[in-house]
């Protein structure tokens, strides 16, 4: 499904060039659950943004379903993000003025779904993350764990095949963090691909395939299943 070939991403910091990604090669098959671990600044987030088509490689190729993403324009990339990729962020990134339902509805709105179909889907999604009774609540009326559930419901709105989670438990207490991870893993059980970025080894080791990042370079962890 995903193939990175010799991908590099460079940043200029002052007059120094920093390799956020340095000759990364990676193949991800459908249905895989993999974690990316490493110290902060090692390039985890850059990798995730790149996989999520929010960023482009400076060198190398990124093939999504065999298609070279460098050739796609803004509208194509936006459609791929919308329909094939779901994001879960460390800081939830909910729109503060919208209710839980409104936030979950956003991707469907952007995709042009008619209102009744959206309503039904939002209800099902909120039920699935256990927040059916919080649909009208605004983010500031929800706990951290609840906010992240809303974000997961939103990520699944258009039934994407790839879910990218960037430190999804990083801003939660341990109990809530475990709940969120359980929820994400349940998502994978439905046949989706899950990429989990974390610096917490305990969480990372729950994934059958584990990747390590150091200074922009990617290593398969020993013990990881191919």
């Amino acid at each position, binding site marked *: 499904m995903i193939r990175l070939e010799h991908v590099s991403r460079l940043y200029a910091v002052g007059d120094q060039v920093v390799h956020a990604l340095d000759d990364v090669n990676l193949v991800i098959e459908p249905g895989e659950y993999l974690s990316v671990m490493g110290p902060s600044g090692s390039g985890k987030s850059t990798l995730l*943004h790149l996989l*999520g088509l*929010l*960023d482009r490689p400076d060198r190398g190729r990124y093939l999504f379903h065999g298609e070279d993403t460098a050739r796609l324009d*803004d*509208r194509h990339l*936006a*459609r*791929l*993000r*919308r*329909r094939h*990729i779901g*994001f879960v*962020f460390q*800081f939830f*990134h909910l*729109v*503060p*003025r*919208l209710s839980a339902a*409104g936030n979950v509805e*956003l*991707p469907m*709105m*952007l*995709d*042009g779904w008619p209102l009744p179909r959206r309503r039904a889907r939002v209800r099902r999604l909120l039920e699935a993350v256990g927040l059916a009774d919080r649909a009208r609540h605004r983010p500031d009326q929800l706990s951290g764990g609840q906010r992240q559930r809303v974000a997961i419901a*939103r990520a699944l709105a*258009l039934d994407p095949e790839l879910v990218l989670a960037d430190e999804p438990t990083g801003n939660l207490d341990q109990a809530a963090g475990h709940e969120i991870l359980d929820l994400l893993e349940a998502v994978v059980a439905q046949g989706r691909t899950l990429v989990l970025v974390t610096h917490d080894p305990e969480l990372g080791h729950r994934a059958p395939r584990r990747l390590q990042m150091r200074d922009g370079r990617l290593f398969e962890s020993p013990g990881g299943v191919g």
Partner: protein
Amino acid sequence: MSWLDTLRLALGSLRFTPVRTALTVLAMAIGVAAVLLLTALGEGARAYVVREFASLGTHLLFVLPGHAHTRGLSLATGLVSSVRPLTLDDAAALKGLPAVAAVAPIVVGSAQVRAGGIGRDSVVLGSTAELRTVRHWRMQRGRFLDPGDWHRARAQCVLGPTVARALFGNARAVGKRVRIGDRRFRVVGILASVGRTFGFDNGELVIVPVAAAQALFDREGLFRILVAARNEATLASARRSVRRVLLRRHRGHEDFTLLTQGALLATFERILRALTLAVATIAAVSLGVAGVLIMNVQLIGVARRVPEIGLLRALGATRGQVLGLFLCESGLLSLGGALAGVAAGMLGAGLLGAMLPALAPLHAPAWAGLAAPALAVGTGLLFGLLPARRAAALDPVRALERR
């Protein structure tokens, strides 16, 4: 994304900052209302002038001494002394012309009018019996000046109602004697009030035979000659024949000016229209200012919502969708301002009309009612373009990293 959803999202974000939204809408509304109010005033003034002219009759021809070389207002040329004056005989010569219904020569001066120890400075008009026909005046009491020989300075006068009341109170004035300057006149009638025309009240007039006025003010030349055509259709031919006769009498020198009511009216209308347009343009500048305000507010909005914009991009919004969203907000702000401004402008024109009954009914002309809100929305969208483009151009990764 459907346009309805764009609208819904835009409305939602505007509602989230109610004070900012209200103030921006207010600024635009003030601009639109100003345009409407000022054009309503200008239009009211123009309609007022047209009405006043119509009340004077539209088949009038004015003969003024002196020649204006440029078109336009030359009402003051009666004061220029270097030209050959219009004489009473000039006026008399116009009387028999076929297209002419009536001719009234006019001499104007001001003098003190006294009766029974009360004095009052009045405008004294020297004319003839025909003046009443030409002006459509009616009498409150008595009769107008006697017809007959224009050269005879009969000692009779007609008073305007205000003058009559000032001099005689409620007592009967007709038949009484008054002193005008150093001469004595008998009051033969009192005019019925016609109200004001151009702020000039016939109530303050004192009318004496033209020959008497010439003697009183020691002035041969006429202030002007009023010529009434038989009707509007014969106005042009009356004008031609009047010009021919006067040219012959003045040995080919065109040292007089012929003005028709229509030409005067057209001049006034031109001036007032230009004035209306000028003030409307000045008011329209405030629309531009409001547009800049919208740009500012939206730039602030974009800066504050950077993470939200990043999120939208991550969720699969195209640059175009982000652009549309912010443009829609600017459009809504200016549209709200336009609608509120039209409402306020109409309300204000109504109130102003109540305060200035002479100009009532006051309402903005249709072109202003359409152009002002259209210009407001146009400005809003134009100035909204910069912030919207800035939002659309944001790098989603950087946007997401900002919290």
